[in-house]
């Protein structure tokens, strides 16, 4: 059985359906010694803002059962430094680059998208509407369909680059948000971001994160993420979805693809194993071959929804 791992994501051909998730692969260059960046499905960069951001104080990270909390606070060098350094490096390395964008208003997102429009080497943009580590909950645009759609429309107006909208599961009606952003011009969706969480050190009686709350990631959230992909894929057939949340093995990736994801992104998995993105793709190839499936795109049709 020959397997062709490549997939089409919003009109972009990816070498494999396994990407490095935003915030979990730095700006890519940190990983050049560990993996061949050109061999990955893609690199979603750490979120970039118009101006540099310093991020939150430490401790920024706490391990929790089967996962971790983080409150990094979107530390990044700003879009100018990103374009001059990181983006150029990634493009030269032959990576398929997905730039993650973050802003405090639709207008900021629009300016950011305009600045990146036409940058050589940029394959897609991912609009980060759902980082929980922001000063105000109002910046988590994906908690409100109208606010999310407004951001997506601003980005759509500024760039023709294929666009993913990254949403949060911390909502009552995810399908409503998904529908609003695709109606506003998003070509695809990334599901899900970290879940807002909190942990307390009972010895010191303090929160374990300096920011008090943070985003929960890792295998602990995978069932939530799989459920979200399933729900949205059912409601919005034909909308490409990048599934993310606790993918550390090929079997985890297959779960997402079976319920309707076009691709997956490995996040916390890269913290555990710097070669996780590659190894998940290699394992997926073996999984597909063992099941007599020639392409990852065939998996959703093979899912047996009825127990």
């Amino acid at each position: 059985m020959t397997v062709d791992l490549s997939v089409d994501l919003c009109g972009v051909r990816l070498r494999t359906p396994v990407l490095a998730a935003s915030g979990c692969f730095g700006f890519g260059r940190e990983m050049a010694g560990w993996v061949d960046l050109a061999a990955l499905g893609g690199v979603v960069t750490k979120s970039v803002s118009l101006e540099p951001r310093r991020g939150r104080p430490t401790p920024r990270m706490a391990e929790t059962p089967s996962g971790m909390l983080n409150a990094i606070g979107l530390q990044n060098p700003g879009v100018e430094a990103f374009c001059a350094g990181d983006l150029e490096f990634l493009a030269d390395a032959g990576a398929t680059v997905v730039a993650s964008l973050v802003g405090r208003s639709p207008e900021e997102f629009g300016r950011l998208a305009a600045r990146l429009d036409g940058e050589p080497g940029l394959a897609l943009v991912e609009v980060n509407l759902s980082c929980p580590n922001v000063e105000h909950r109002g910046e988590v645009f994906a908690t409100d369909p109208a606010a999310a759609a407004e951001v997506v429309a601003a980005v759509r107006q500024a760039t023709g680059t294929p666009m993913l909208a990254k949403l949060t599961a911390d909502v009552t009606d995810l399908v409503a948000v998904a529908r609003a952003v695709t109606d506003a011009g998003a070509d695809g969706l990334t599901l899900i971001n970290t879940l807002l969480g909190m942990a307390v050190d009972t010895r010191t009686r303090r929160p374990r994160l300096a920011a008090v709350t943070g985003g929960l990631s890792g295998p602990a959230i995978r069932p939530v993420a799989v459920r979200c992909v399933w729900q949205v894929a059912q409601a919005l057939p034909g909308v490409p979805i990048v599934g993310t949340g606790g993918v550390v093995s090929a079997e985890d990736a297959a779960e997402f693809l079976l319920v309707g994801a076009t691709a997956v992104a490995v996040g916390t998995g890269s913290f555990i194993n710097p070669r996780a993105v590659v190894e998940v793709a290699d394992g997926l190839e073996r999984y597909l071959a063992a099941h007599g499936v020639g392409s990852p795109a065939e998996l959703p049709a093979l899912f047996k929804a009825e127990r």
Partner: protein
Amino acid sequence: MSPVRELCEVLERRRVGAYQALTLVAPRIAEHARPGQFVHVLAGQDRSFPLRRPFSIHRVERPRAGLGAVEIVFDVVGAGTLALSRLRPHDVVDVLGPLGRPFTPPGAPTGCLLVGGGYGTAPLFFLATELRTRRCRVDFVVGAASAGRLLDAMEAKRLGHSLTVTTDDGSAGRRGLVTDLLPDLLARTGAGQLYACGPMPMLAAVSRVAAAAGVPCQVAVEEQMACGTGICFSCVLPLGPEEPTRMARSCLEGPVFDGTTIAWAELEPSR
């Protein structure tokens, strides 16, 4: 050399006072490891505590090319270190290393004062060995909460020209903090270089004493860390002297820093 991932056989696990020492067969890591660098260890396949744990390299054995081992020292404080403490010879552990920037040795033979707190003293033994091959005089000052929390004082005695001990409770050496004695020790040993590793408040105090005495000081920090490879941005420290300070990743730019560059006042007072 860029770091590698090695599946390491456990050679030996032993108790060192209140701590555990684990020796791992790691030829490629051992070949290139330098004092101050760390390894990032996956404590097991149990995903309920999924992350690696960083440990500074305590000792390196490299009898010949292709054969080498690294030793780490740890305190059992949680699920990960508990799992490590239960490893037995021939078990296999997944290790990344050597990671981070090492201590920089003096350009010429210089008296060096090595300041360690608790099991934070671990990398200073490896450093002392290297400094001695460079014909530097090495003096140790080590502190801990109590006598039982000192790490291998006899080894420090063996490697150093002198050993000074302090404990918080006076159960060994002088009662008090290592930094209480530093000005005197600097004057007495004539040290031209300080190296320190231990809890952050100790490193802050050592850096202040060093700056006041005009002696260069390198400190190895221990920060909460997820990846160890520069991608998670958890292990940052505010670095000056430029204002505003910038958040530097201690896994890539450290764990060894010039003590004068760290903006100690900005660090969380809670720690």
